[in-house]
Structures are given as structure tokens and as C-alpha cells.
């Protein structure tokens, strides 16, 4: 029975063949790096980075908000690349990567949409404004929520992988158009509230870079854990089928 399950015809989902111990080491590495760098980032954000003259303490959420936005974008780019790789190769691994990255991306985009208004209220005076960046992230969040909902509606693994890969490609190609439309849509109200990164003091820039590194480790860790969980689930499903 076991050999039958492994010898699937071409075009079926093929199991991943990378050694398990190397993947475990990688998971532990990203997890450890996150555990080390997260307290450092918090310390730097509160004690090392100077207080902003205009925005006060509220500005410090910037060190969580901007890295979250960066990870949200990175995660959806990974969904795009992994979706193309899945359609090209038919390997289950790429579907695992795409779906896991979409889940993690939605989490970080949610963080962007929560931390943005928290900062916006004291600084702009409103929780929400239809700023192009905020608007784009809201639309991104909706696109990838629909990606996750679609996956829930397709029980067959191969079909689910193909359908979501197509949505992963269409959704990401939509991003630049979304951003353009969000910019032009409110072009009559110029919203130049956001600090341009060019005139950031050195300490702020260093803290921001530590934040980006920390969140990248965190993303890689969560992605590895989710891919691992997907692999375990697939093994359980396979065992149930062959029983």
C-alpha cells in the first residue's frame, strides 16, 4: 500500500523529498533568531530610538507597523512565485509554501491594518483615512482573505492547489493596479502625512532595520512551521485514504 501511495502518475501531487532533519534545523534557526531579536527590537524601539518631536511616543509603533507591511508584501510575493512554481512543476511543496505564506501574510497585513489606525488617531486625528497606502493594504487583505476562503471551499487537494495558484497569480498582479487606482482616486486630497524615510535620524533608521530583520526571521519561522503542519496533515490524509 505504501509504495502505491508514493508512485503517483505525473501531474499528481508529488511528495516532497528534502530530508526532514535539515528542515527541522532550519525551523529552529529561524525560531531562535526571532526569540533573540524580538526583545532587542522592543528595547531599541523604546529606549534607543529618539522620541519624535511632532508625533511623540505614538511614532514608536512605526517599528512594528513598517516591518509588518514589508512582511505582508514579501509574503504575497512568495505566494505569487510559489503559485507559478506549482503550476509549472505540479509539486505539492509549492502549494504548501503558497498557502502557508498567504496565511502568514494575512496575519501581518491584519497587524498593519490595526497598528496603522492606532497611530493615525493621535497623529492624524482619525483612525482611518483613504490614504493610498492604507487603501492598498485593505484591498490586499481582502484579496488574500478570499484566497483563504477559496481554499476552504475546495476539498480535493489537486484542484484546491490549482485554483488557489491561479488566484495567487491574479491577486498579486492586481497589486500595482490597486496601488495606482488608490493613488489617483484621492489625488484631489494630497496626503503627505507619512514621514519620508530619507530624513530619518540614524537611530530611527537602525531600529527600523532591526525591526525589518526581526520580522523577516519571524515570517520565515511561521512559514516553516505552517509548511511543516501542512506536510503532517497531508500524511494523515494519505494514511486515512490507504487504510
Amino acid at each position, binding site marked *: 500500500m505504501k509504495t502505491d501511495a508514493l508512485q503517483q502518475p505525473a501531474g499528481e501531487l508529488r511528495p516532497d523529498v528534502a530530508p526532514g532533519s535539515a528542515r527541522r534545523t532550519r525551523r529552529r534557526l529561524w525560531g531562535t533568531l526571532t526569540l533573540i531579536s524580538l526583545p532587542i527590537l522592543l528595547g531599541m524601539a523604546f529606549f534607543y530610538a529618539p522620541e519624535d518631536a511632532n508625533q511623540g511616543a505614538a511614532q514608536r509603533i512605526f517599528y512594528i507597523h513598517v516591518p509588518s507591511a514589508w512582511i505582508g508584501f514579501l509574503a504575497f510575493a512568495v505566494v505569487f512565485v510559489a503559485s507559478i512554481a506549482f503550476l509549472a512543476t505540479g509539486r505539492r511543496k509549492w502549494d504548501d509554501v503558497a498557502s502557508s505564506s498567504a496565511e502568514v501574510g494575512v496575519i501581518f497585513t491584519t497587524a498593519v491594518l490595526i497598528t496603522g489606525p492606532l497611530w493615525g488617531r493621535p497623529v492624524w486625528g482619525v483612525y482611518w483615512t483613504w490614504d493610498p497606502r492604507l487603501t492598498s493594504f485593505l484591498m490586499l487583505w481582502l484579496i488574500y482573505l478570499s484566497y483563504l476562503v*477559496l481554499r476552504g*471551499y475546495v476539498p480535493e487537494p489537486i484542484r484546491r492547489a*490549482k*485554483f488557489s495558484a491561479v*488566484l495567487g497569480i*491574479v491577486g498579486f498582479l492586481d497589486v500595482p*493596479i490597486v496601488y495606482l487606482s488608490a493613488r489617483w482616486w484621492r489625488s484631489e486630497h494630497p496626503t503627505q502625512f507619512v514621514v519620508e524615510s530619507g530624513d530619518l535620524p540614524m537611530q530611527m533608521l537602525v531600529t527600523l532595520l532591526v525591526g525589518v530583520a526581526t520580522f523577516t526571521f519571524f515570517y520565515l519561522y511561521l512559514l516553516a512551521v505552517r509548511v511543516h503542519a501542512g506536510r503532517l496533515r497531508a500524511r494523515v490524509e494519505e494514511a486515512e485514504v490507504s487504510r
Partner: protein
Amino acid sequence: MSWLSPALTIAGKDLRLEMKTRDVIASVGLFVLLVVVTASFAFPTGGDGREGVAAGVLWMSFLFAALLGMGRSMAIEKEDACLDGLLVSPAPREAVFLGKLFTNLGFTFAVELVILPVFVILLQLRPTGGALLLLLATFLGTLGLVTVGTLFAAMAVNTRGREAILPLLVMPVSIPIMVAAVKVSEAGFAGTWGSGTTSWLLLMLGYDALFLLVALVTFQYVTEE
């Protein structure tokens, strides 16, 4: 072109079916009319800035019309395994996609052409000089909606949710083309070429071209078993 002739055959089949049953045109047409009338009560139409409100109402109703029509047109193919028949036929997948796209575009655009004058009268608009702009916005906007919609409808009918999840897939991705279509229609209703109208038209053209290409390439993956 080798795609065009089978695509037209498929669209012709849908047209003949529609002539006999009048299912889609009747249900979608009445539905849009109902949305327009309901929206006329729900929104402050006829006052200052009415062009903006009218353009929004117009495109919400067009969006619903397109979603309803596309879901129906793909559901028909699922009955008696018609879609399987199309897929085993010698017609290339691209032609099957184009055929369904022509059907969806034709039906939706036909309904919109009928509803537009009714809409202009009901909402007391005077789009003198903006008629061409309105037609252009309607065509380009509808093309974008049905391109993405035809691709996603082929996926949606093969899920547990059937056509019910089609709006969930189409709406987030189609926000940019909706925004653009609303902006151009607003200029059309006002009868003047707005400052950003050219940019919005280019955005619609780009959206349509990009997703037409992507849909042609990826349609084979959403239909193979």
C-alpha cells in the same frame, strides 16, 4: 486564428440557447432594473454632485448583473456535463475560455445598453456630449469584470460553494477597474472630459489586457481534471 472559430461556435451555441429560453437576459435584465430602482430610493439622487452618486449606483448594479450572468452561464455548462463535452472537444482551452468570455461580455453588455438610457431618465441626468465616454467606460469596465469573472466562474462552479463564492473571488480583485469605471462614467454623466479621465481609461485598458493574457494562460489549469 485557430482560437476564434471554435470560440465563436461556443458563443453561438450560448446565443441560440438564450434565444430559446431567454433565461439569462430576462433574469439579469430584471435584476439590474430592480437594483437601479431600489438604489434610486436608497441614495440621494438628483441633487448636487448627482453624477458621482449615479456613477456609483450604475456600477454597483453592473457588477451584480455581471456576477449573476456569469454564474448562470457557467452553471449551464455544469448541467448534463456540458463543460466536460467542451473540454474533450478538439477546441483548444483558450478557445473555450474566449467562447465563454464572448458570451458573458455579449449578454452583460447587451443588458447594460438597455439599462443605460433607462438609468439616465430615472436619475434625471443629462449626459449631452458624454455618451461616447459612457459607452467606452461601460465596454472597458465590463470587459475587465467578465475577463476575471469568466476565469473565476470556471473555478467557482467546481467548488462546494458553487456560484455563491463567485462574488467573493471577483470583487476584491476587481476594485481597481470598478474605481476606474466609476470615475470615467462620472465624467460621462457630467458631459465633460475630466482631468484624470485619460489616466483612468489607460488603467482600464491595462487591466483588461493584463488579465485577458493571464486568463488565457491559466484557464487550462482551472479546467483540467
